[in-house]
């Protein structure tokens, strides 16, 4: 039982990260039907921004987190304006291939400037005391991850459901042309969506970087892919679906390692993807058109 609870905590912290990244995939897909494969690299850049902010500018963790969040958000907007906006009415495959191109540009530009060697954060960045509850161990860092993830999700849900901009986002997602006729500035709304999604990816990058203490220019590839699967699992385009999908993938991976074989922990994620695509292509919460963003 203790072992199970411990593994659930491991799975939840991993899953929270996937959920944060998956939200960005899902929001962007919801609004312009684009699978933004560069999203995992925005996450990577979040980690790098925080690395430079803490190592060379000696900012504290929370300031670095905000800086990384804002810079990644702005980067998301810039990517959208430069790479995707000109292709908005092109075929979807064109935009998809462009997204892969952007992904490579970000990865190898970072590698050119930062080098391919892994980097580590300053050791005294964050207090990482461990607490033990009847044998189950939880660290301060894991608590930060849960809390930050939950707070950000609440804020996001509030923005999407209760604000004017959120309403605009939902409107554009349902029908872009109709939204335009209603006086909604579609370009601004799409930019804002990219901003939000990229902010979340940036935060995920910082959390992962500090939690595992290892970042490199290609770190976004695998988590990006798994978060994408999480988004598909939850129903791509659906915000609560992305959260559930992220947590589910994290826990599934952990439990397979714990009670099966660690050899299959990555395979299981892709098996889930295949099963979802065969059995319920719309994902867990997919059909919920009203909630789509």
């Amino acid at each position, binding site marked *: 039982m203790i072992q199970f609870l411990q593994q659930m905590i491991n799975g939840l*912290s*991993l899953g929270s990260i996937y959920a944060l990244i998956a939200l960005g995939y899902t929001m962007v897909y919801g609004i312009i039907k684009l699978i933004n494969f560069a999203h995992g690299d925005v996450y990577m850049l979040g980690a790098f921004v925080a690395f430079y902010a803490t190592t060379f500018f000696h900012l504290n963790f929370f300031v670095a987190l905000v800086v990384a969040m804002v810079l990644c958000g702005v980067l998301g907007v810039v990517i959208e304006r430069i790479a995707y906006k000109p292709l908005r009415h092109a075929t979807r495959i064109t935009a998809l291939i462009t997204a892969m191109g952007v992904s490579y540009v970000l990865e190898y530009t970072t590698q050119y400037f930062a080098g391919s060697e*892994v980097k*580590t954060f300053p050791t005294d960045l964050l207090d990482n005391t*461990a607490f033990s509850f009847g044998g189950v161990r939880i660290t301060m860092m894991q608590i930060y991850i849960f809390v930050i993830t939950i707070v950000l999700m609440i804020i996001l849900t509030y923005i999407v459901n209760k604000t004017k901009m959120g309403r605009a986002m939902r409107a554009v997602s349902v029908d872009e042309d109709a939204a335009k006729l209603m006086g909604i500035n579609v370009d601004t709304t799409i930019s804002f969506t990219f901003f939000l999604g990229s902010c979340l990816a940036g935060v995920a990058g910082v959390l*992962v970087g500090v939690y595992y203490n290892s970042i490199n220019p290609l770190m976004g590839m695998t988590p990006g892919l798994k978060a994408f699967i999480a988004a598909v699992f939850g129903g791509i385009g659906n915000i609560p679906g992305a959260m559930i999908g992220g947590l589910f993938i994290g826990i599934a991976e952990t439990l397979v390692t*714990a009670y099966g074989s*660690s050899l299959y922990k990555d395979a299981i994620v892709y098996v889930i993807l295949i099963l979802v695509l065969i059995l319920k292509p719309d994902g867990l919460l997919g059909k919920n058109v009203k909630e789509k963003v």
Partner: protein
Amino acid sequence: MKGNFWKVLASGSIVASMLVGCSSGGTAQEAVKLSEGDTVKIGLNYELSGNVATYGQAMDKGTQLAIKQYNESDDAKYKIEAVSMDNKSDSAEATSIAEKLMGEGVAMQIGPATSGDSIATYPSSENNKVPVLSPAVTQNGGMLKEDGTAYEYAWRICFEDSAQASAMAVFAKDLGKTKAVVYSDAANDYAKGLAEDFVAKFEDLGGEVVAQENYTSGDTDFNAALSKIKELDFDVLYVPGYYNESGLIIKQAREAGITQTILGPDGMDSPKLAELAGKENLNDVYFTTAYTTVDASDELTSFIEAYKAEYDEEPDMFSVLAYDATNLGLQALEEAGETGEALNEAIKNIEFTGLTGSFTFDEEHTPLKKVLVVELENGVQVNPVEVDPNAE
């Protein structure tokens, strides 16, 4: 214009492949009898650019230093001329450079750095009857042809991967450990080979392997497997793989409360390890290596000083192995007084003492030398001990 470009490219590659076709079927270089004062060319076939350039450059420096010191010494019989070429970390390029060097009449080739690039040059060595000395081919069976015999003209200076895994098993046994867990990189042949050899040797010696877990290169979260391992009854954890993952595994293991001894291979040997794992977590950790500067001999100390004076940087394992490889070649050259077959014979029978130990070659053209096991204490290397991988 575009069409022309492709035509030129296509015809160029046809010509190139014809050239390669010719040279690979080429005949043996003629053996030359040497007399004192002759100039002898030595070919350096290293990865000076490309993705493993750091290894190749370090080795090139080690070799160049050995040659420079030889030329400056008073009792040198010959004048050595180094012919250095860049194989761009590409095994096809390494082969064509080997042909080029041997065509220019080098007495021997030193390099390349990686197992793959080196092995690609061995058929050329045999065709041309020019010995190749590989400083760092650790791949199991790397010197063997498909029929199981060794390439006649190829030699390596480092121990084989299986030797360091076996040495670690022997060492674990010597520490009194009987129950091991192996946590290995499933996506990496080096780690997989090490894990297999460690398990085989450890069980041979009467130990028990309680569990084997796997991760994949590039992983950063090892908590699930480590939480599982923590519940097991074991006294030593073997983690074959490279420092990028090993560092994080050690950190997460120690933080999860795994206090048992942790063992690893030479892939852990990097200053990055301490950064990734945190110095406080690097206690009761041991790894195998070919080289350490702890308790350095006088010869090693003077090498390090000469190297620093020449290049203004610290030597690493690769430069030392290349330095040894070059000196071994030079010693054999003096003993043979001739290139070609006689030189190869001299290498075969050599008794060499270098910075990484004294050794002779076995039938698989691999040095019979002891493996070093180094302990980490707060992230600092201490107490190197020599372990015989073949101990019972």
